[in-house]
């Protein structure tokens, strides 16, 4: 499986990455190399192998339904680039 120029640019956009004209061929080569490797792996029979759901092998970490204090607005504001009327302000989206 190989990705075309267009598909590589599409993946870059999904990942919010800027990809210049010069970088494109290199990236395309690297991505396709990875895909080829995965293709090789897919040829290995995994019949009877239980899917690894999590690397720990542990299950069920729960918390009880208990409310704890929220972060004060002042502290949230400190971390926000733009904060108005108790809200995060972002460039208009629609």
């Amino acid at each position, binding site marked *: 499986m190989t990705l075309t120029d267009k598909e590589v640019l599409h993946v870059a956009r999904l990942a919010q990455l800027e990809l210049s004209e010069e970088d494109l061929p290199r990236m395309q080569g690297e991505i396709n190399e990875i895909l080829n490797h995965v293709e090789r792996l897919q040829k290995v029979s995994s019949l009877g192998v239980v899917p690894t759901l999590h690397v720990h092998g542990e299950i069920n970490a729960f918390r009880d339904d208990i409310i704890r204090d929220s972060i004060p607005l002042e502290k*949230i504001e400190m971390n926000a680039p733009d904060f108005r*009327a*108790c*809200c995060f302000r972002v*460039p208009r989206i629609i």
Partner: protein
Amino acid sequence: MSADSTSEFEVVIGLEVHAQLLTDSKIFARSSTVSGKTANTLTDPVTLGLPGSLPVLNKRSVDFAIRLGLALQCSIERTSIFARKHYLYPDLPKGYQISQYDKPICLNGSLVVRIKDGTKKIGITRIHLEEDAGKNTHLSDEPYSLVDLNRAGVPLLEIVSEPDMRSPEEAGAYMRQLRQVLLYLDICDGNMEEGSLRCDANVSIRRRGETKLGTKVEVKNLNSFRFVERALEYEIERQIAAVREGTPIVQETRLWDEAACTTLPMRSKEHAEDYRYFPDPDLLPLVVDDDWIARTKSSLPELPAQVYERFRKSYELDPYYCEILAEEKAVARYYDEAVAFHNNPIAIANWITTELFGRLNKESMAMSSNPISPENLASLILLVDNKTISGKMAKAIFDEMFSTGSSPRDIIEAQGLKQISDPAELEALVDSILSQSAAQLQAYRDGKTKMFGYFVGQVMKASDGKANPQIVNELLERKLKA
């Protein structure tokens, strides 16, 4: 929908319903889920997506998912997995929503829905747990949007139906009865206007006899039962017209615009379908054992369809009454309790659905703040049944009971309202009225039999409405014949 379009085309509808769960805290975080608070005051590191924060699953949200799964006859999956669904939008601080993808917690259920001519089994494909996103507001004339993350991380159950519905009415019935189940289970408040219950519909049409599904269109923004039905009616008309004109139907998402009564194509988030799901490595597999399922099963309440059937069979109620009385758990319980005090199920059903609901409606009160206890309502009806009071007096006493919360007996005693049924006392009253009405009596004897009503009225008036009308009638008939 015009009659010919229903016969030529078949409509195929499936619904995706999101139900906000009534947990106190969020699905993976500690902040509160209440609504109506100042923006961004219900947040914590997980909700804000701060680096290094880790989600931990709220056990109660799993309990709720199992409850609904069991109520909808689903298989509860022993192992389910949380997955990341990626899209970039300001209301999603992490850049992904935690949801379930190929291993949801509940699969393959059904809901038997009452429709116009009987019942219909609607398949449930799956139910999964996920977190809600925050809320964006767009100020007019400003190049900004505002983001409030209070709602981010509130637990949701997404309930996906099979494409089993064949008309907007069936979709409406499914939605209403699913809501009832959620309310009976106490896991969602069911408020569609406030968004705690949301519905998206997938709708397509095909020529009758065709087995392949037509191109489906997703309709969003259906935040009331009326919208669900109206939007679907509109969308079906639109698709039928397109097919007749030979215009192909495009697979797309459309928004219902209630004001304009139309669906419009939604400007889609760019590449919205590229969600790049993968198992969330921050969360362990969720494993539910038999014991957990058995415990949940034994704690399930009687469900609305069961209550409906029980009312129909054991109380021999009309479907109309069954529908209304089974709709809310609090009403059904109230009705059962009242009938336990006085076994006149039909009269009690009638009083609840007319007088009680009428008054609650008038005062904009919910059943939970109803001041009349089931015992008091039952004893009021008993007093009518054993002829201590007339139906008319009962209504006046009912009003007093509603205003004061007193028992009917206390009100009757305090106001001296008891019906007069003593024949001797009534006979004296009838005699005195007749002796004062010589002219009317003459008219009656001359053939004006309508005067009978006049005499009844005079006796009732003289007794302050307390005379037993049946006995008064009998006495008058006897005396006037003489």
